[in-house]
């Protein structure tokens, strides 16, 4: 039994935590949250220089070849820091989509740019409300030009390459890679619950685009990308949920009411014990997801859905009870509680909400026929 990250990856975790403690404080998060910039460019460059962006990209494509367990470890730290960078969009979604669906030529041409941080990628699946489903994707690729509307698109304002769930001229579902630098796209920034991770509405009108993967397999490819992203985002979520519990616990030890620390009252103790329980369940499910992702196991759809459902539940609970434990102070703009409350909801929605993934858990259970 070896159900823990290797010593090397533990060291990577420590390095990442130290780096982010210095270069990604709440001041950095707030700079993006308050609209000074669309992401933290210096932090992004730092992540590229340290090889984080290419952690799971093979060395032959310009990556560090650490594998997906390495990326999971980094994701947890990025989640702890609530880092205001397009990491999830560019790496978990766009780069993964190219690795899953791209031709050898596309991989050679594109992955190096993602690993170096030269390109920012993203994935556009949503078209307003609703979760991913077959037949729901309306943008159309015809003659190398894409037309249609997608929103919300994570990092849609800063991305230069966008994987789009679309259809071909025959109406078959396909994934395409649109080049947002080439014109033919109008971007409108959206007001959202977490401005530290900006979202956009993209209107494609003859935007240059190339097909990713086989025609007709678009939805299956999208599902594979989402399964992989679900595990990685789960690590961001448990990172954030862990910080919420640490913040709430520290505050409950220091804050006095009725002559003693509020953390001595069972109303607070039991609440935080419940947060601990939810966090541990989510962590354990995420670890199984990491194993399934690293080994590309047949269990990945079930492991990913379980990791996501657990992580959504844990982060929501931890972030709201962190505010509650802080009382009125927790509701102020000045306290950092809201950075995590916002992020918990954003991450809980960005690749489809918990209900969608719960359904996928049971789908996978019925397929594997082993509950």
């Amino acid at each position, binding site marked *: *039994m*070896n*159900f*823990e*990250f290797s010593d090397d990856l533990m060291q990577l975790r420590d390095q990442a935590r130290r780096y982010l403690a210095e270069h990604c404080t709440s001041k950095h998060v707030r700079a993006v949250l308050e609209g000074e910039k669309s992401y933290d460019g210096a932090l992004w460059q730092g992540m590229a220089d340290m090889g984080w962006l290419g952690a799971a990209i093979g060395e032959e494509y310009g990556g560090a070849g650490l594998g997906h*367990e390495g990326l999971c470890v980094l994701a947890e730290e990025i989640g702890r820091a609530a880092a205001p960078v397009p990491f999830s969009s560019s790496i978990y979604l766009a780069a993964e989509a190219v690795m899953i669906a791209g031709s050898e030529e596309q991989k050679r041409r594109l992955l190096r740019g993602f690993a170096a941080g030269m390109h920012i990628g993203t994935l556009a699946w949503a078209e307003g409300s609703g979760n991913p489903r077959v037949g729901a994707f309306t943008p159309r690729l015809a003659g190398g030009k894409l037309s249609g509307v997608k929103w919300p698109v994570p990092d849609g304002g800063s991305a230069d390459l966008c994987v789009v769930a679309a259809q071909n001229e025959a109406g078959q579902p396909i994934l395409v890679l649109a080049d947002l630098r080439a014109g033919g796209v109008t971007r409108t920034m959206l007001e959202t619950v977490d401005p530290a991770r900006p979202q956009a509405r993209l209107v494609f009108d003859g935007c240059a685009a190339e097909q990713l993967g086989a025609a007709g397999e678009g939805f299956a490819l999208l599902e594979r990308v989402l399964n992989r992203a679900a595990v990685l985002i789960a690590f961001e979520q448990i990172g954030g949920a862990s910080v919420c*519990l640490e913040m709430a*616990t520290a505050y*409950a*030890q220091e804050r006095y009411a009725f002559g*003693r*620390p509020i*953390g*001595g009252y*069972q109303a*607070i*103790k*039991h609440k*935080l*014990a*419940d947060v*601990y*329980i939810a966090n*541990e*369940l*989510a*962590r*354990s*499910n995420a*670890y*199984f997801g*990491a*194993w399934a992702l*690293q080994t590309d196991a047949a269990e990945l759809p079930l492991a990913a*859905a*379980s990791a996501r*459902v*657990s992580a959504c*539940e844990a982060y929501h609970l931890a972030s709201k009870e962190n505010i509650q434990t802080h009382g009125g102070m927790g509701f102020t703009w000045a306290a950092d509680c809201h950075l995590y409350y916002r992020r918990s909801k954003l991450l809980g929605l960005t690749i489809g909400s918990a*209900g969608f*993934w*719960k*359904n996928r*858990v*049971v789908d996978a*259970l*019925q397929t594997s026929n082993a*509950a």
Partner: protein
Amino acid sequence: MDFEDSTDEAAFRGRARAFLAANAQLKSEAKPVSRGRHIRAEEIALAKDWQARKYAAGFAGITWPKRWGGLELPPIFTVIYQQEEEAYAVPRGVFEIGLGMCIPTMMAYATPEQLERYVGPALRGEEVWCQLFSEPAGGSDVAALRTKAERDGTDWVINGQKIWTSGAHYCDFGIIVTRSDPTVPKHAGLTFFFLDMKSPGVECRPIKQISGTSQFNEVFFTDVRVPDAQRLGAVGAGWKVSITTLMNERLAIGDVPRPDVTDLVALAKMIDLDGAPAINNSAVRERIAEWHCRTQGLKFTRFRTMTALSRGQTPGPENSIAKVVNASKLQDIASYGLDLMGAAGMVMDDDLAPLHALFQEGLMFSPGLRIAGGTDEILRNIIAERVLNLPGDIRVDKDKAFNQVSHGKR
């Protein structure tokens, strides 16, 4: 990450598998059993026989010293055996307390001569032990117990009442914590003994539970004489000895009580809801998914604990969540299963109720699981205080003589 055993672990697992396959019936091929059922005399005989076979095959006392008949292996091997045994319908509920809590406490405090006398018979399944801690006035606050022990020459005389003692009526020996000095604060006035359950003055009365069955007893002590030689630990050190026992309780890793998610999936396939199998209903699917994630979360939490054990490290506190999650989950799954059945959910008739009334039995058994071995509330306090380092509760009785503390009417 991987789930591979080391060479030694794999060899041990292989031996355990072969032993179980040759000697026990798979749960999947046996009639489902909830844990709420009364243990009858013939089942005690079966349990004793099973324990004897386990001992003979080398799967009893896996971590215990060889000197006392154990195998002296690291704790990971116990977990491996339990993992394998979980798939089988073997007798459970007779030896767990004796071998998991009583004998380990004896090993820490009894004399070599006493260990020579008692460990072997317990390990071979010849003698059964029980634990006498809880009292009507000392449940979660077990140190508030009142059963008196008074010195009389080379004996102690015990008077009082214990409660919630599993299997007291068929046990041969018990470990007991008593109040030997009521004039000092509660933790300081306790003394610990082991005793013969057949001693004159010991009377067991079964407690009828809300499930209608009786797994637990009240045990009354009237002038029961126990030799001082059967004292474990110093006079007044009973609390410290009790902690040894309770620490061993936390190491015991429980199986997943049924009905579990697998049973609920099976039920949801059988039940018709609005003209289609309930498993197709999105509200049903959401609940199944939530409980699946909790079940798997606990399973993989146990894997993390096993990883630490396998590496020879002390596990982190993560496994402390297991019982509190399992107990409520059981109650919720059982209740939801009945809801799915509609009005028929109230029917417990073994022939009519799906899965031999497993859900109905679970409903009536689950409240006990949320209380036994640490209530949900005490377990949350333990997580908050020991894991999160939050302050302890206010204890107004901490520095007062026990006989000066108010006791209330219940």
